[in-house]
């Protein structure tokens, strides 16, 4: 799993183009994050990584890195 690719995949779920994300970004604080974005991210992770994240575990992640690590731990 590649963190840069993961960041690009998450960025695609935002309505805004050119959203700037890094591993340290707290994704829920990014402008344009709404509850629908969470559903899109879950769906993207299912498509790209074959993992359906348990919502209670996803809620405990704050940064992109933490979300990435959670997905990686399920692989």
């Amino acid at each position, binding site marked *: 799993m590649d963190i840069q690719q993961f960041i690009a995949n998450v960025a695609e779920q935002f309505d805004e183009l050119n959203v700037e994300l890094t591993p340290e970004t707290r994704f829920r604080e990014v402008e344009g994050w*709404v*509850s629908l974005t*969470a559903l*899109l991210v*879950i*769906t993207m992770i*299912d498509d790209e990584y074959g993992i359906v994240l348990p919502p209670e575990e996803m809620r405990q992640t704050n940064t992109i890195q933490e979300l990435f690590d959670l997905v990686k731990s399920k692989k």
Partner: protein
Amino acid sequence: MAELRIKNVCLRGVAGAVPETMVSTYDYPFFSHNDADNFVKTVGIKNRYIALHGECASDLCTLAAENLIDSLHWDKESIGILSFESVTADYRTPPTSCILQHRLGLPESCMTFDLPMGCCGFLYSVAVVGKMMQDGNIKRAILLIGDTITRMSSPKDKSRIPLFGDCGTAVALEYDENAADIILDMNTYGKGYESLITPHSGFRHQVTPKSFEYEDFGNGIVRAPIHSLIQGMEVLTFAISRPPKSIKALLEKYAIDKDNDLDYILIHQANLLIINQIIKKCGFDTAKVPMNIENFANLGGASIPMLMVSELNQQLKEHKKMLASAFGLGLTWGTMIFETENLIIPPLAVLHTTDNVK
């Protein structure tokens, strides 16, 4: 898997009715134009019919049932079972199906019961009534499936109210020794019951003044305990995981080829994201998956019968083999494989507020 195989029972007709008021996603005060654009693109819902004037599911189902019985030319005396699948009954007691036996002019020899099962309601109705009919003593049944779900939600809950629409449907089953088997697989994940729940108004938490006190949960979610709620992430993860497994298992067990043996795949119209995930995971050809979510939204248990009314009324004049997939409240999910021929489908009816609402 809880598997059921129903013999000697055939689907004869389906009818649907909607209230006259249609609301656009762009009409909601809590959505900006951009929010509404995103909602339409992602969730897939542009319009929905809503029961704005106190119409009940029973009113909509009555209209659908009258049209269906007329179109089938059935003698009402020949109907042995009337079921009413709904979570929006007229009263806490008595069961609405009893009231409807009288309202529809069905004979006293008719057995009636309610089934409050939510989004899998069509599958439950066919499973329960179909199994009761297969020994041939009862020849005909009318299955009513409908809800006024928008009346359960807080008008200020952005996470819930735009997802649903109101309607009533009626389905006719008949004993027929030449009928192809109806195959079902039904499942339950009770651990997830709080993902779709109406906290107050049952006997666990009876109605008190507190039931009507609104609370702001953030993210545009303002509701009271009397209102139904949805935990979007929980429902999404459930719906993209479990139904595809049930579908694949049933197809494999009965050696049914999804590309060559099935004419249509009817997926509960809950949310475009979920529908598309199920299509992808099962590898279905999208040309075989009719959709009406754009103009009806999530109709609960009536979603699948309404798909037949709104999208397949011409196609189902011929013999077709179909797979239906539903998931929701409970949480429950199921798959049904069935065949129909010359299905009678009267045009979608509209209940006007000037009509007699009991």
